[in-house]
């Protein structure tokens, strides 16, 4: 039977998660690029949102959630076949149409996260084609593994709101894209600071607020689990923000705004898989760990490996999501205020399951993403010309300019 209260909260959560992408993530990313590419980033986010929605309706949802094998769902719910107005989803008190919508907002933000890897040089058509294929080939199956009753679910993997499903997949795909599309002209010596740090902060704030829908909504009900998920999410975000502020203060004497809110996002990504299983101590720990490790990862990938994952998708989301997934094995212990282990499970055995989930997903995502990029490259080139890159994608790809003051 449909539960009105749960439905009310998930309706709200769906709005919150859409808000994370539009305009939250879009602004977060748009503020980080140069002013001549602001519109292209916004356009990629809105076009991904639109295209993923249709792809999700046509086949994505079915591949993720319709009964199938351990590896992938089936095509039986294409176009929501058999899902009526009154159909209830599984054991929940939610209309299946609502579950479909809530999950769709996740299927929108995940490809949108990858945008950070290839801004300022990608062809628009390549973004569209890549995202659509990736949703079907990577996102939908992995979702099935973890949330759709697939093999990872069977092993007892814990990923409350998408550490593996969303952040690890996006991070790995980002690295693949960054390497295969190639560096921006001038990277790393001539990289310019974000053109609008204020916009980055606004986007991050919206992501923070919207993440309440993401994590607390993943409880699929309006009760204690949602409340605790919201609490630990917030605590992790706050802690990681402070971590970045302290690190930059110590290292440069000046804590930066972009740094602080990057910490926020790191804290949010890290707590995501853990958010339904841990208590306040788990929130603090994820915030601390996510803050520190993601900071180091940015430095490693950007400055040492010199990979132009331009907006640090792997370092912040991929690494954060992975850490959170692994930490869940320990932080879910009831000794630390967590929900405790399933019968027959220990921290150690759970850790192995979690690690398996991260590693296998990352490997699968890497291989599949490489193949998709090769296809995209064959169909439409990946990059704009050097001239267009210099001119800026706003005008070159979309015929518009960002600021006409």
């Amino acid at each position: 039977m449909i539960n009105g209260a749960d439905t009310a909260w998930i309706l709200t959560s769906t709005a919150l998660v859409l808000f994370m992408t539009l305009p939250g993530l879009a602004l977060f990313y748009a503020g980080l690029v140069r002013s001549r590419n602001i519109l292209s980033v916004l356009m990629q986010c809105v076009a991904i949102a639109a295209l993923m929605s249709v792809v999700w309706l046509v086949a994505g949802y079915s591949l993720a959630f319709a009964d199938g094998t351990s590896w992938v769902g089936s095509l039986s719910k294409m176009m929501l076949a058999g899902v009526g107005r009154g159909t209830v989803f599984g054991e929940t008190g939610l209309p299946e149409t609502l579950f479909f919508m809530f999950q769709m907002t996740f299927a929108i933000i995940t490809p949108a996260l990858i945008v950070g890897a290839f801004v300022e040089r990608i062809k628009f058509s390549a973004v569209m084609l890549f995202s659509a294929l990736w949703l079907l080939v990577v996102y939908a199956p992995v979702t099935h593994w973890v949330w759709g009753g697939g093999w990872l679910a069977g092993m007892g993997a814990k990923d409350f709101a998408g550490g593996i499903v969303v952040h690890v997949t996006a991070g790995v795909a980002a690295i693949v894209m960054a390497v295969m599309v190639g560096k921006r002209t001038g990277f790393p010596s001539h990289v310019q600071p974000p053109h609008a740090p204020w916009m980055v902060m606004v986007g991050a704030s919206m992501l923070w607020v919207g993440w309440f829908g993401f994590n607390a909504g993943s409880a699929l009900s309006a009760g204690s689990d949602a409340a605790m998920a919201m609490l630990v999410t917030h605590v992790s975000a706050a802690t990681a923000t402070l971590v970045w502020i302290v690190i930059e203060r110590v290292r440069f004497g000046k804590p930066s705004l972009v740094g602080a809110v990057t910490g926020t996002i790191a804290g949010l990504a890290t707590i995501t898989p853990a958010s339904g299983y841990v208590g306040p101590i788990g929130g603090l720990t994820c915030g601390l760990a996510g803050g520190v490790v993601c900071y180091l990862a940015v430095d490693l990938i950007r400055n040492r490996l010199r990979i132009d994952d331009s907006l640090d998708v792997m370092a912040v989301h991929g690494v954060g999501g992975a850490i959170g997934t692994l930490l869940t094995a320990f932080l879910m212990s009831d000794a630390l205020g967590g929900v405790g282990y399933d019968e027959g499970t220990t921290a150690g055995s759970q850790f192995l399951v979690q690690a398996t989930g991260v590693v296998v997903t990352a490997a699968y995502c890497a291989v599949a993403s490489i193949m998709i990029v090769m296809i995209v490259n064959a169909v439409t080139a990946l990059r704009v010309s050097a001239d267009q890159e210099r001119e800026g994608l706003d005008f070159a790809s979309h015929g518009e300019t960002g600021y006409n003051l």
Partner: protein
Amino acid sequence: MKFIIAIIQPHRLDAVREALSAVGVTGMTATEVKGFGRQGGHSEIYRGAEYTVHYLPKVKLEIAVDDHVADKAVETIAQAGRTGKIGDGKIFVIDLESAMRVRTGETGPDAL
């Protein structure tokens, strides 16, 4: 007539303008510019790295004056614009052949 081009620190604009006013020069045109010079640039922090921004914001003043006012005006700008730190800017003087007030068509010093 002379055409004075002065590059100054942005925060000295009000002081310079008021000082010029005091010596009778009230018309001028200001532009926000980017200055490159000995002062070098400054470094901004971005996610764990420092990036050098090569220029510094400056204000350029353009002032057309009658010949006999030129030296006084230059002197005034220099004094009001000076902080004594590197990057205070430059004052250039160019010969001005003619001037016209658009509204009235007046020319020469009367146009200023």
